């Protein structure tokens, strides 16, 4: 392998790509060629680095210097200064808000400092399209160990002891699921990787798929040995073209090298993988609906039990886990259950990836130990709320999650604490809201999403989400009546109790949790016909403040609909009808 004195790692996650990462890479390559450094400096594209807010991002090794918000024009100077003269360029480094000194190294930046990378261990560190780079960082070592030294029972025991729980949302113990799959009668057995990430504002799975596809492959081969499966499917929604491409390449490379297929690594074990593209329905993320989709049917959930581990794909035992869960498996096998269970809380072990979006300074992707507080995520890693505004709530767990208010900021995050607070872990989307966010409007937004995405099988969900949306919409339009809240709660409870799948059972959460913590906002809309955050248009009235009006005519002349009445040097009036 050719040696280079410096490696330039351009972040090529979807976020950075959309703000021009590939142009930066091209400019770097051009400049390096021009300076005749192509034999000593290597430029590669990595998966998502996580600090999406600051893209395009470049890491320069061996120094570990972090450059951000790069422009093509910056590149010649950067190459000359840093790579030729060895002077890192301060003006392209990250400066935290309210500070003046740039922070040169990634590991010293607050956003990265408190993270603990397990599922994302290779993010921004390897070229996801080169299997050699994955292997260089101990890739496929866990698989080799599992295939050559461990019995299926031993693998399951290790995963069980680690305390790993499903990262897709429900938090079912992974070891238990695998054991059920192993014990189930029937052949062949199947594995599925659930990469149908549909929550607005969530991009955990996408980032893992894009940044480290081989980790998922490796996790699945280990799972296959444990369960006794020979065939697996990776279900990725077609809205993730980059993820699809990189997983495709990874499967191809793994097959060529004998890391997938027949006689893996010469151990006699066989397992192969196939990609299935989803067509972008939110409900496909529900496991029974997803399996229907893989079989070629309409993605609709069915009654459980029987659980997939007993009767899954084509009625055969099927173990289905989320992207993040699979990507975590190799590290547990390699470093041991004890190491993993040493992180986290009593009931929730290890780390969890969260996507941090909304009204927050450091938008991005973070992996943190379970048991961290919301405050640490929002104010520590997330850098707080922009423009010095106040934190109001965080919506956690996607559309079917819930809103957690400011008074619960010190809540330690694990599966149980979030459910208790009326939200859920979900896949890990965190949408931060400030005091200019109207909670009724947020409930309306999520109900609109859910009524669209309800598959229509259960009346309680199909009609329930529609009615809840209608009521909430009515309230935001200032047409709400007092009894609406009662009806809303009743519909919400029915939807929760009477729906078949997780989507329906949690579809009322946006309404229920906002009602629980922000009932006064609903009441302000209904009783005072007022939107406290000033968001709901129908409840906003513009008036001319009589004492301040000089009658200058400026507003009258600017109004496109001639709604302003008044003459020169007299107080003006806005006609509201």
């Amino acid at each position: 392998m050719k040696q280079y004195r410096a490696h330039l790692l351009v972040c090529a996650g979807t976020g950075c790509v959309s703000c021009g990462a590939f142009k930066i890479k091209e400019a770097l390559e051009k400049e390096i060629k021009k300076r005749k450094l192509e034999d000593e400096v290597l430029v590669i594209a990595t998966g998502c680095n996580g600090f999406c807010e600051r893209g395009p991002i470049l890491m320069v090794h061996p120094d570990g210097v972090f450059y951000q918000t790069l422009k093509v024009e910056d590149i010649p100077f950067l190459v000359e200064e840093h790579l030729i003269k060895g002077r890192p360029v301060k003006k392209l480094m990250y400066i935290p808000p309210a500070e003046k000194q740039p922070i040169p190294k990634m590991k010293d930046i607050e956003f990265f400092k408190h993270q603990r990378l397990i599922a994302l261990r290779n993010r921004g560190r390897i070229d996801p399209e080169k299997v050699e780079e994955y292997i260089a960082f101990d890739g496929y070592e866990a698989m080799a160990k599992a295939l050559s030294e461990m019995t299926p029972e031993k693998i399951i025991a290790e995963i069980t002891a680690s305390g790993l729980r499903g990262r897709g949302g429900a938090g079912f113990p992974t070891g238990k699921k695998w054991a059920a799959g192993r014990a189930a009668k029937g052949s062949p057995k199947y594995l599925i990787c659930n990469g149908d990430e549909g929550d607005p504002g969530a991009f955990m799975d996408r980032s893992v798929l894009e940044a480290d596809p081989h980790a998922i492959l490796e996790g699945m081969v280990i799972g296959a040995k444990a369960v006794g499966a020979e065939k697996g499917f990776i279900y990725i929604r077609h809205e993730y073209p980059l993820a699809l491409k990189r997983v495709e390449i990874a499967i191809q490379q793994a097959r060529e090298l004998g890391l997938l297929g027949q006689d893996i690594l010469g151990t006699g074990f066989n397992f192969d993988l196939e990609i299935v593209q989803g067509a972008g329905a939110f409900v496909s993320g529900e496991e029974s609906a997803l399996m229907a989709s893989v079989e070629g049917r309409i993605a609709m959930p069915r009654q459980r039990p029987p659980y997939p581990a007993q009767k899954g794909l084509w009625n055969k035992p099927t173990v289905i886990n989320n992207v993040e869960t699979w990507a975590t498996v190799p590290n547990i096998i390699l470093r041991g259950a004890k190491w993993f269970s040493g992180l986290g809380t009593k009931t929730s072990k290890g780390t969890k990836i969260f996507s941090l979006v909304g009204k927050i300074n450091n938008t991005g992707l973070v992996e943190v130990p379970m048991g961290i507080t919301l405050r640490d995520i929002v104010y520590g890693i997330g850098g707080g709320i922009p423009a010095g505004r106040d934190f109001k709530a965080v919506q956690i767990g996607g559309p079917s999650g819930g809103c957690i208010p400011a008074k619960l900021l010190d809540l330690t995050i694990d599966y149980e604490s979030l459910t208790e607070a009326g939200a859920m872990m979900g896949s890990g989307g965190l949408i931060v809201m400030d005091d200019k966010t109207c909670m009724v409007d947020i409930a309306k937004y999520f109900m609109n999403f859910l009524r669209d995405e309800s598959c229509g099988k259960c009346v309680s969900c199909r009609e329930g989400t529609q009615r809840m949306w209608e009521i909430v919409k009515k309230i935001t339009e200032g047409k709400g009546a007092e009894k609406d809240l009662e009806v809303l709660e009743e519909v919400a409870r029915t939807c929760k109790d009477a729906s078949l799948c997780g989507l329906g059972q949690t579809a009322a959460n946006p309404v229920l949790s906002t009602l629980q913590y922000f009932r006064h906002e609903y009441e302000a809309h209904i009783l005072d016909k007022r939107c406290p955050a000033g968001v709901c248009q129908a409840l906003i009235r513009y008036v001319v403040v009589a004492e301040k009006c000089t009658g200058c005519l400026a507003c009258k002349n600017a109004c496109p609909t001639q709604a302003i009445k008044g003459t020169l040097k007299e107080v003006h009036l806005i006609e509201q009808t």
Partner: protein
Amino acid sequence: MAEKKKLRIQDLAKIRERTKALTTIRESEGRAKVTVHMGTCGIAAGAREIMDALLDEMQKNKVMDVIVSTSGCAGLCNREPMATVEFKGQPPVKYVDLTPDKMRKIFAEHVLCGRLVPAFALAVGSETVY
């Protein structure tokens, strides 16, 4: 790298051995670090040839656990080209008035065998280079 040969378990270790340089650089954790001073004065005095010689030796000797870096002017322009050799936990050693041959000798003696080359050295210990 198109090896179409199917891998065996022991091949994984071989790939890791071969790609050691990659992990060394990305983890910024080498056994030693050699810095070639490439300020304007250094470049004018021939730092480029020093760098080429160093990289050539690295490649020839398949040294994968040493980090090669560049830095700006060290303030001693009349003794350029210069290079600094650092071992973890030890004070850095500055070499001055280098030629490609001197660099090769320093590499063989100091970097590979850990024996300082007093004849070319200016001083042991220095201000920290960024």
